[in-house]
């Protein structure tokens, strides 16, 4: 993006080069009179155009700066202080980060966050891709089923969490009754069990998110040229071979986007867990963003909460950069 803008600006700078014929003619007429004045005028107009452009994004940008950018930058500074949200912060250097190393609850939250991401990302990816492939065919009622698959995503998170909680009820919930048909006499305790609470949350969130990513995959699938499939069929490729050699490579840009979005989303999971398990039982499903909320808003240790936020930020940053790097490398090969 930045390269592009620079290129455009550079192209436009010698008068006449990057301009339309009409503009060039107009400028040209004046240029005869005084080349220096023309350059000034061109520059002034460019500045004015830029200002108009800025003024269009200004309302949004102001909001972004005030509500997002400043707090984010402030969080980095606050991470090195001891602050109760009211009195002057005390500079404490790396103390908050040293405390991170020994804080069992934060370590558990970090582990749970990674656990959630490792479960949620592949499961959602697989489910949404399968759905997209299934619903990309010309079957009767495809539009209806697509809408149905998208529905969970636009359903209120609170409703989703409440209903799934009931479905997962260990004693009388349909999930365990269903398992009973398959001979599982005592189904797992799901959200009441430390071992099964996280899988329950992962299943719920995959169910909720798959419709959204299915739409992305559907768009990706439709951009793959039909001719490639025809050619593959002519060469006698089986369905599996067509999937592996045509569909998957054709979907690579989409898969990459979905992967990045899913990873970032997984690491900042908060709402579903708060409504579904509140981090319990015990600390079995407490995630980093919840820990940040607890230490900051509830315990009033905003400096330490900022330090945990910085940790979460770095984690997501490193993961996303790695994904970009991997994607680029694969693109080249």
């Amino acid at each position: 993006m930045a390269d592009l803008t620079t290129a455009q600006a550079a192209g436009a700078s010698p008068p006449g080069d990057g301009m339309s014929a009409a503009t060039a003619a107009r400028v040209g007429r004046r240029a005869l009179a005084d080349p220096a004045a023309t350059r000034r005028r061109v520059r002034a107009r460019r500045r004015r155009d830029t200002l108009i452009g800025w003024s269009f994004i200004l309302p949004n940008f102001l909001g972004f700066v005030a509500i997002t950018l400043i707090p984010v930058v402030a969080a980095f500074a606050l991470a090195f202080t001891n602050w109760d949200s009211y009195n002057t912060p005390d500079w404490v250097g790396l103390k908050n980060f040293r405390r991170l190393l020994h804080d069992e609850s934060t370590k558990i939250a970090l582990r749970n966050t990674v656990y959630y991401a490792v479960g949620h990302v592949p499961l959602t990816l697989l489910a949404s891709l399968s759905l997209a492939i299934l619903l990309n065919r010309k079957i009767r009622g495809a539009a209806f089923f697509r809408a149905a698959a998208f529905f969970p995503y636009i359903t209120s998170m609170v409703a989703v969490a409440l209903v799934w909680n009931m479905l997962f009820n260990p004693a009388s919930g349909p999930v365990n009754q269903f398992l009973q048909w398959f001979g599982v006499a005592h189904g797992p305790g799901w959200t009441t069990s430390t071992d099964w609470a996280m899988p329950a949350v992962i299943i719920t969130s995959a169910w909720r998110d798959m419709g959204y990513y299915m739409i992305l995959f559907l768009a990706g699938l439709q951009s793959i040229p039909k001719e490639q499939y025809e050619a593959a069929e002519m060469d006698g490729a089986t369905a599996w071979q067509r999937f592996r050699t045509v569909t998957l490579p054709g979907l690579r840009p989409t898969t990459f986007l979905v992967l990045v979005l899913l990873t970032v989303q997984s690491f900042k999971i908060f709402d579903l867990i708060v409504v579904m398990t509140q981090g319990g039982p015990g600390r079995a499903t407490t995630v980093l963003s919840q820990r940040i909320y607890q230490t900051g808003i509830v315990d009033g240790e905003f400096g330490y909460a900022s330090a945990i936020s910085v940790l979460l930020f770095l984690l997501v940053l490193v993961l996303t950069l790695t994904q970009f790097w991997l994607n680029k490398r694969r693109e080249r090969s």
Partner: protein
Amino acid sequence: MNRRKFLTMAAAAAAAAPLAACGSSKSSGATGAKADDNAPVELSISVWSLASTPEFQALFDAFHQANPNITIKPVDILSNDYETKLTTMLAAGDTTDVITVKNVIDYAGYAGRGQLKDLTSAATSADAAQLSGLASFKEKDGKYYALPYRQDFWVLYYNKKLFDAAGKQYPTNLTWDQYADLAKSLTSGSGQGKVYGTYHHTWRSVVQAISAAQTGGDLLGGDYGFFADQYAMALGVQNAGATIDFGTATTQKTGYASVFEDKQAAMLPMGTWFIAKLLADKKAGKTDVDWAIAPMPQRPGGSGITTFGSPTAFAVNKKARHSEAAEKFVKFAAGPEGAKAIAAIGVVPALLTDQTRQTYFGLAGMPADDTSKKAFKPDKVTLEMPVSDKTSKIDKILTEEHQLVMTKQKSIDAGIKEMGSRVKDETS
């Protein structure tokens, strides 16, 4: 003016509009003046869910009647967001005059940060001496920053009809063992129509606060051996199926009010705030449960009735615009007139004198038997959770471990041990 110039100006104006709006609201908010005694004052008070918490309006009306020059402007905040919102408001230098203190854990935060006005002289006056729950607002430095106007404590609610049907005597002065046996024998039926002998809500206080109150244990101390008996009782009742299983209650987000009002449970240990709801719901025809209250069950060998409670208080914002009027309101609410106003709608005032008790039991729909009256006069009410700067952290730890013990992920002993070691590690 050509078209482009016009567009530029329009865009600039559009961009500047939100700025202008910010500016003007700020300037109008900066007028602060000290009021003399009879000048009209608009007093702002932060409250939660005004429409469903009638005590606030009752207090405001009574106060306005006594002080016609002061009108009250409630700052209504959604109950669930109250603590978060207030923390943010105060951090941003909000000038709301009176701050309602929802619980002592938050109070510790506000007072510790120096966000509240010192009310020590009012709190140590002769009038305030009778206020129950006042001690909870004494900070480490010996100062008080809030005055309680309401003090709820825990009693045992029971459903008379279900006792009659089972041919059992109404509870009067139970021990915990008697209570557990009674709960088991009152349980009947199965499936949807099952009647539970009692209902233990999922809050940790149902087990922890009552055992701290009755054994004298310290909830902030780090040694939680005193929970053991109470956990054994609670798990015994749960294993016998005499209360809704903890896991089920959590996953289904069971409401204690509906369990009792729908006659699914014969007994319910709960705070006195539930009385106002029972009275209101019966009046509105939402339930016809025939109820009464008894004192909380006690440990064997103890003398008198010990229970626990939690006060609700008003405090004055240090940055209040009308500090004097605010203090006047806080004293009024904690005084006899305030007590009368809220007792009249079924809320238990902190100033619980014989006179307010009389007002209280004179309400339509209140049970009038002696046991109920006795339940309303406990000998000792200890604080649900002592105030300290570590309270919120310890509260979180105890809640997490409580879940593990009640869902049987951990044995009682292991849970108690873990509570102790976590409190020591994480709050030092």
